């Protein structure tokens, strides 16, 4: 059963080249910010290290931080430029019962993160959902296609804060 500090210390001296940002003063759950192109090596290490053994990815949630600068497009509804999308990885070790929260930041315009499906298979559908609802492109994901929305939904990604509902989808009026 390792505490948050021990785990972050272990991570830092395992990956000296990566600059992690340790956030422990945040309300309710401290987390570590990991750069998007290193996430799969970090997760592989977290899973395979003997005294960490994070063998189950509990939850992977994508969040639209909506912190770019707002601009108006022609119809007057606001469009976000810049800003970040963040991915929260909740990991847990069944053996040692300790938990950790990782956060990955990608920019909003063309978000792309390395997929961790090779580390935990449960990430497969979580990542497909993040792609479907947020547009985050996961590199070397087995089959990245929409999961909840119809496969041919080309009006953007619904869970983004500046998402506009289309008027018609294949002849059906969308806002009922």
């Amino acid at each position, binding site marked *: 059963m390792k505490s948050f500090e021990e785990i972050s210390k272990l991570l830092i001296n395992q990956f000296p080249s990566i600059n992690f940002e340790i956030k422990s003063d*945040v309300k309710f759950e401290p987390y570590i910010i990991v750069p998007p192109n290193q996430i799969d090596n970090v997760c592989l290490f977290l899973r395979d290290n003997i005294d960490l053994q994070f063998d189950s990815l509990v939850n992977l949630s994508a969040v639209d931080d909506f912190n770019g600068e707002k601009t108006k497009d022609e119809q007057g509804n606001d469009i976000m430029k810049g800003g970040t999308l963040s991915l929260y990885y909740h990991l847990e070790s069944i053996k040692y019962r300790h938990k950790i929260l990782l956060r990955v930041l990608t920019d909003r315009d063309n978000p792309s993160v390395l997929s961790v499906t090779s580390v935990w298979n449960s990430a497969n559908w979580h990542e497909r959902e993040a792609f479907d609802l947020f547009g985050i492109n996961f590199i070397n994901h087995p089959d990245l296609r929409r999961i*909840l929305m119809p496969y041919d939904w080309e009006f953007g990604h619904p869970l983004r804060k500046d998402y506009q509902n289309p008027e018609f989808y294949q002849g059906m009026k969308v806002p009922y």
Partner: protein
Amino acid sequence: MSVRTEEMVLNMGPQHPSTHGVLRLELTLEGEIITKVVPHIGYLHRCFEKHCEVMTYPQIIPYTDRMDYLAAMCNELGFVIGVEKLLAIQVPERVEYIRVIMAELQRIASHLVAIGTYGADIGAFTPFLYCFRDREKILNLFEITCGARLLYNYIWIGGLSHDLHPDFIRLTKEFIREFKPNLRELNNLLTYNKIFIDRTANIGILPLETAINYGVTGPMLRASGLRWDLRKDDSYSIYNKFDFEIPIGEGKMGTIGDSWDRYFVRVREMEESIKIIEQAIEQIPDGDVTAGIPKRIKPVVGHIYSRVENPRGELGYFIISDGSATPFRVKVRAPSFVNLQVLDVLCRGHMVADVIAILGSVDIVLGEVDR
């Protein structure tokens, strides 16, 4: 000379009598043997997470009911515990007890549906009606307490919408007294029936490592032999006050982690839930349940991941609040959504009739898968 069988793609669903809702399974068959199963979901997607961004905290509770509509109480409990942690408020003792009783009654009702529809999938239609006859009694208990039978909006942030009905305790005791013999009878009729065992033992075996790697939780993980239950391991609410044990799969009728084990873990879990309810009814204190409900709910900026042992697995709410009365983001970790991924691994090499048996033992609810 191997017989060249040409692959046949069979679409099962989305309106198929036994896919437990709107789920389309694309089966690639060779003769009768399955080589690949691709589940297509999203037919029941009602964008719960988009709703949460425009609703105030109390208004979200009726929406959480509609995710796993067979275990509405447990959904509400998960969300409410998360928000109470955000607000850092402590709920009176009586409310905790009532919440545990309601969650356990809901677990029995949900398992009765799972077992009943599983029997009906295998072909035995009578146990399905016996299970629903017992479930009606639980729904009546819910109805006299909060007025609704399926979607309750009963557990509020900081308390409950109504106190217990005066003769709730008497009716619950009556239900438990009638339910025990019914459960034994169900075992005689279905659980130990040789045909049922032939149809479910050694079918859809889920090894423990694959289960953990696929993030499977709940009765499916316990059937694969791991004693992992959030009520004990990550104990929320007052579950540490009751003694009950966690049933796991022992491979009595086949190997550990087969469909029969998943079914039997649910049957034994119902017995455990009865034990919890009996203890909770004895020790329930008095007190006011609606006093602690805050008038205006504006949690502090921060994020919390609260999780609850739903009848289908670990239901988690990742709530991010930005200080306003509506949450900034609520992400739901739905157990059926995660458990459904394993279907492809379970069904390889089995026959079409087994897919129905395996899907029934996985016990998914599409409202929760599609959110």
